[in-house]
């Protein structure tokens, strides 16, 4: 493999006398101050090793899902096809893992290429819609048939609200685990998607309605809603800072 042995562009000679000398003492004091300021719960969370941070994010979504299942689990469990439930939850769960991996990607890993970021974000936003568009899982429970007529809006708003309530704490947890608090745009996007997918996962365990139109308007929109909410939050914060 070729090693750089010469500088035919003569760029290094131009660089060598470039004015890059800073006051190293003052610079180190600044670094030491910032390092010393890494205290408190938020600092403790983001200073964990990456496997631990991922573990916390995964345990959080599992804990919230179990809580939803135990407290407000869906009433049509006995008639819901188990394989369908398995791959609905599995798909959302795998997507959550992927999103959280990107959201918490350590700074010593190269930033993924734009095409990868766009592709994964599109997948995160689209999969819930694709799941919602599938034929009804069953029509064997009276509550499963609701939400497609006059009550479309009210049921959809109720589920969107429920999903968002679950999603917001997850967004906060993942944001606290992120080491780059001033985060780049793609980290914020995937943090929002983590929350949104957690909300949809919770809805899958809670809501007995199987009508595709309800799943699209009330469930799948939670991820999109979270992305918009997080985007709006950062936009407002940015304007205030200026």
């Amino acid at each position, binding site marked *: 493999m070729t090693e750089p042995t010469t500088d*035919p562009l003569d760029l290094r000679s131009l660089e060598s006398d470039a*004015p890059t000398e800073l006051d190293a003492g003052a*610079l*180190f004091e600044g670094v030491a101050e910032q390092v010393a300021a890494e205290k408190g719960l938020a600092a403790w969370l983001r200073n964990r090793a990456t496997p631990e941070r991922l573990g916390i994010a995964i345990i959080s979504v599992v804990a919230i899902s179990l809580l939803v299942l135990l407290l407000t689990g869906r009433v049509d469990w006995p008639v819901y096809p188990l394989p369908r439930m398995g791959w609905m939850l599995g798909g959302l769960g795998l997507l959550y893992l992927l999103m959280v991996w990107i959201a918490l990607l350590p*700074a010593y890993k190269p930033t993924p290429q734009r095409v990868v970021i766009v592709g994964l974000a599109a997948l995160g936003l689209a999969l819930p819609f694709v799941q919602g568009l599938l034929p009804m899982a069953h029509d064997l429970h009276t509550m499963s048939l609701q939400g497609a007529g006059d009550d479309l809006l009210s049921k959809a708003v109720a589920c969107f609200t429920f999903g968002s309530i679950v999603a917001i704490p997850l967004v906060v947890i993942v944001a606290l685990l992120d080491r780059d608090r001033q985060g780049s745009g793609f980290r914020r996007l995937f943090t929002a998607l983590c929350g949104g997918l957690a909300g949809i996962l919770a809805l899958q365990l809670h809501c007995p309605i199987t009508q595709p139109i309800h799943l699209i308007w009330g469930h799948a929109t939670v991820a999109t809603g979270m992305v918009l909410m997080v985007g709006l939050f950062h936009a407002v914060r940015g304007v205030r800072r200026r």
Partner: protein
Amino acid sequence: MARYVADEEGALRALFDRYVSLLTRIMARGMATQAETGDLVQKTFLQLHRARHDFRAGAKLRPWLMTIAMNVKRQHLRSLSRRREDTLEPDGHTAPVSAPYDPEVTDKRRRVRVALATLSDSMREVIELYWLEGLSFPEVAQIMGVSLSAVKVRAHRGYAKLRAQLEETECNPLNERGIQESER
């Protein structure tokens, strides 16, 4: 780094002393002020501190640190460019602030910096890491998270673009050897 992870006293200072020049050089390129450069160097060390428990004993620290630095710099440049688009401020980030005055060198340096600034992020980074920092192609590939062949292609195209830019401004410190070196 292992000493730092073990919270040994003085380890942060030792790490800082060892890498501050390298980081300052990397960050200074394309920055308008030394304060800006200093901020980015500090941010890099802070990110290193936060990631210290991920470091595996025996691993090489330099590629690790350089990847952090390139990510921090890229993010900063993008936010600057967004801010400029929002406020329609003129671009003030292509020339160094306080170069010692030597008309010929200063002018040559300015032209090269302007030409570098016209390259895409990925091409400019390859040229900075390979030619200016003297890293090998495999190291550059590791830092940028792309294949070896992609790095070589970017180096080749980057040189070609730089040469074209400099020919346009009638200052051409490049020659065919540069292209040939990057092609190997």
